């Protein structure tokens, strides 16, 4: 637990595994690690846009997920992201939702 803010450290999540050697967690290259976190935020925001939510990094150790009105939740890792997103919006975040898929496809096209 962080002595200053009282945030509990979370267990490792499978998405945190090193996918590209030397890039993500459990390595000593801080810059690469931060860059990967930024990219994760960017990719998640592309999906979260459909729900009116925005994610941002918090101290390199967690994420902050916020609605347009500023309602905010702390998110440890990706598995928690969708639970918190559904809690904040009261909507189901379903990757199989045809409307979401159509929006992503339209961006690609």
């Amino acid at each position, binding site marked *: 637990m962080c002595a200053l803010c009282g945030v509990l450290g979370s267990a490792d999540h499978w998405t945190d595994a090193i996918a590209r050697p030397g890039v993500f967690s459990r390595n000593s290259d801080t810059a690469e690690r931060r860059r990967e976190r930024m990219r994760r935020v960017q990719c998640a925001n592309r*999906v979260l846009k459909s729900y009116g939510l925005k994610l941002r990094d918090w101290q390199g150790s967690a994420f902050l997920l916020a609605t347009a009105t500023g309602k905010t939740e702390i998110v440890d890792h990706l598995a928690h992201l969708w639970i918190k997103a559904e809690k904040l919006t009261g909507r189901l*975040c379903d990757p199989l939702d045809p409307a979401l898929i159509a929006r992503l496809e339209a961006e690609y096209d």
Partner: protein
Amino acid sequence: MTERPALTPVNLITGFLGSGKTTLLQRLLRDPALADTAVLINEFGEVGLDHHLLERVDETMVLLQSGCLCCTIRGELSSAIKDLHSRREVGRIPFFRRLVIESTGLADPFPILSTVHADPVLKHHFRLGNVIATVDAVNGGVQLARQQENAKQVAVADRLVITKTDLADEAAVEMLIPRIRQLNPLAPLWRVPHDPLDAEGLLSHEEFELAGRSERAQHWFATALMGQWRLNRYSHASGDVEQVRSPRASGKGGAYGPEINCHADSIHAFALVFEKPLDWTVFGIWLTMLLNRHGPRILRVKGILNVTGSPAPVAVHGVQHLVHPPVHMASWPDEDRRSRIVFIVDGLDRAIIERSLSAFLHTNGCDWKQP
């Protein structure tokens, strides 16, 4: 002396009521290879009998009674394993190198696996081993068709054992195998008593541990892609996705047909093949989102991924909400460098899953450049 394992493997023996779980366990425990094995039996009933049938009653055998592991006594399961661990550590019971759990015939395997995988204490001392499902050669066909729990038990298994093959005629067994394969095309299958039981092969050589080995990964996908399945290329909008469709699906017309179906058109298996390397970050976002919303219906996900920027493939393996840590394989199992993902799902449409993953991957907002 054999080295003490860092994490004690936990095997689950599952299978429908009367499918021969206790008989199988009885045979396995006679094997000297499993001499240092603790057993935890769950019975659904007022009077527990199975532990007596095992003819081995000692301190390393625990009976969890009057409730089903997957629902009413999950906390009790966690406590029982912790208690076994504590007693082992202080030397009050003989040291055991493996724990085998025999569930009730009605149990959903997932909550049991989840307890071992996610319990904050247990996960530092135990790890999941193979899940073994027994299917009765005489009644298995009917049970698989009528009992959702039974179909699920077969779908999540790493090892399959058809029991009572001496009581069923050969034709019935031959008819049963394709049904089982429709639910689980990947797991090695034994027929007992006809096949010699290889205790070591059933309980150890964990599927996930072996995922990191090329020859095992080759087996997964050779079975999934080349077995009773037909590879059917089609033109996707992106031109880089290859669909694997069953022969039965082809008669339905359209680009997407139902996959290999069995259990009242509910549980089915399919594979997606991606020509281009996958973006690990986007794949993680997609799969966590999918499992959050549809976890109970994603019975299995197994994949060997060509990840952007990684020279070696990454093996992923999940059972419902539970995803094992990805394994970086030493090398590719064959010349094929495509990502291959096998799904066993309950009531989800393959077409929409494939379309969703493709939409996520073809992102123009995440143009990460390889360092």
